């Protein structure tokens, strides 16, 4: 048994190796039998320490979030060129001499334009981590929040709202009870708007989002102070 290998495997399993070495060592697990065996031995040796952790109830409710990510992963990744693009694009009679690839580029461009219209420039490649449908106190859908994590979110109104003079809508989320409500931004109008939240933990299933009516310029306290216009809980969309 190679002692250096075992020493390095121990350090690897304890999470003590330099980050720059990690990627190579992870990769080597696939094809370096001796390294793989050393890491396996180290993990098995220290496993009793994992078994001293408490069994914490409530794990089963994580399933929906996990399953949502599996479904997305199994689905075909969003291609750059739509797979439905017909290989034999019908050509108008007056364009018979046009090179086919120009036609195809045209199609791709128009599809890209559609996606751009739907998602807006910033959202071209992004998929929201969570979506929350915000409802008023009568249960009517008012707005939809898509939170992309990474300090990006978007709100889209699906119903009319009335904002009294001197008030302004402010969007909030509750990343956790400890953290308390955090502002995602002030809204000028009830239209589709990009939001620029601060750096927050990755949104999770069931996270609360809401819109309140605040004094113009936003809540004076940094926490929601006004009437809640609409609120809703997030549904997880993706694992990335």
């Amino acid at each position, binding site marked *: 048994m190679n002692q250096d290998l075992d020493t390095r495997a121990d350090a690897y399993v304890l999470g003590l190796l330099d980050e720059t070495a990690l990627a190579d060592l992870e990769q080597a697990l696939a094809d370096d039998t001796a390294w793989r065996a050393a890491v396996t031995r180290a993990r098995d040796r220290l496993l009793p320490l994992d078994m001293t952790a*408490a069994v914490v109830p409530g794990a089963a409710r994580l399933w929906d979030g996990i399953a949502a990510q599996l479904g997305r992963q199994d689905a075909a990744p969003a291609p750059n060129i739509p797979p439905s693009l017909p290989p034999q694009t019908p050509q108008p009679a007056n364009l018979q001499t046009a090179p086919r690839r120009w036609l195809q580029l045209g199609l791709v461009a128009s599809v890209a334009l559609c996606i751009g219209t739907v998602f807006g420039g910033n959202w071209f490649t992004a998929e929201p981590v969570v979506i929350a449908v915000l409802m008023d106190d009568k249960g009517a859908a008012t707005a939809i929040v898509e939170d992309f994590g990474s300090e990006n979110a978007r709100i889209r109104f699906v119903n009319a709202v009335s904002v009294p003079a001197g008030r302004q809508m402010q969007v909030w989320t509750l990343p956790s009870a400890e953290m308390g409500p955090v502002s995602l931004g002030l809204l000028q109008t009830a239209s589709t708007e990009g939001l620029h939240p601060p750096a927050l933990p990755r949104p999770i299933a069931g996270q609360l989002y809401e819109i309140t009516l605040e004094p113009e310029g936003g809540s004076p306290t940094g926490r929601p102070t006004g009437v809640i216009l609409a609120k809703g809980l997030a549904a997880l969309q993706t694992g990335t």
Partner: protein
Amino acid sequence: MTLSPAPRPDADDHATDDLTAALAGCAAGDQAALRLILDQEGGRMLGIAQRMLHRRDLAEEAVQDALVQIWRKAQQFRAGEGAPRAWIFAVLRNRCLNILRDGKRLSTLAPDDLTAMQDARLQSVGAGWDRLGDKVALKDCLAVLEPPTRHAILLAYIGGYSHGEIAALQSVPLGTCKSWIRRGLDALRGCLS
């Protein structure tokens, strides 16, 4: 938090067989197999994650991400090459370490939250040692190490502390800390072999 007695890992061959089969199921694309892993190990996984991350929301995130990774990497586990549980927990511990070492993530915590997190991590390291069963060979072998060396190893494994953090906690130079841990792990291997 519910505490249940820690079963000896070598005492439940059924669980090992079930997990080996479940990992094969995951590799074959059977979601029910992953669900079985969550049902059987999810509680312990949450416990492991909570020792390192303290906050329930971060622990849940880590467990969830780990299970998705387990699903994706299940074909890398080879039956008979070690305990399936050790492999599953290794994926989880990696995920927890990534969260801990991602400065941006923890910088969003309020200072009080961060302090509470560090205190809780330290406590759980001590509790882990106390709960290690007397009949486990690892306990005997850890017990003969110098206390600071043993503590350093437990800080790294249970609490997810880095060399630098351990050196600071133990008020020793980084080089001393590294050599304690290295010598301790070498002695541990010798003792267990």
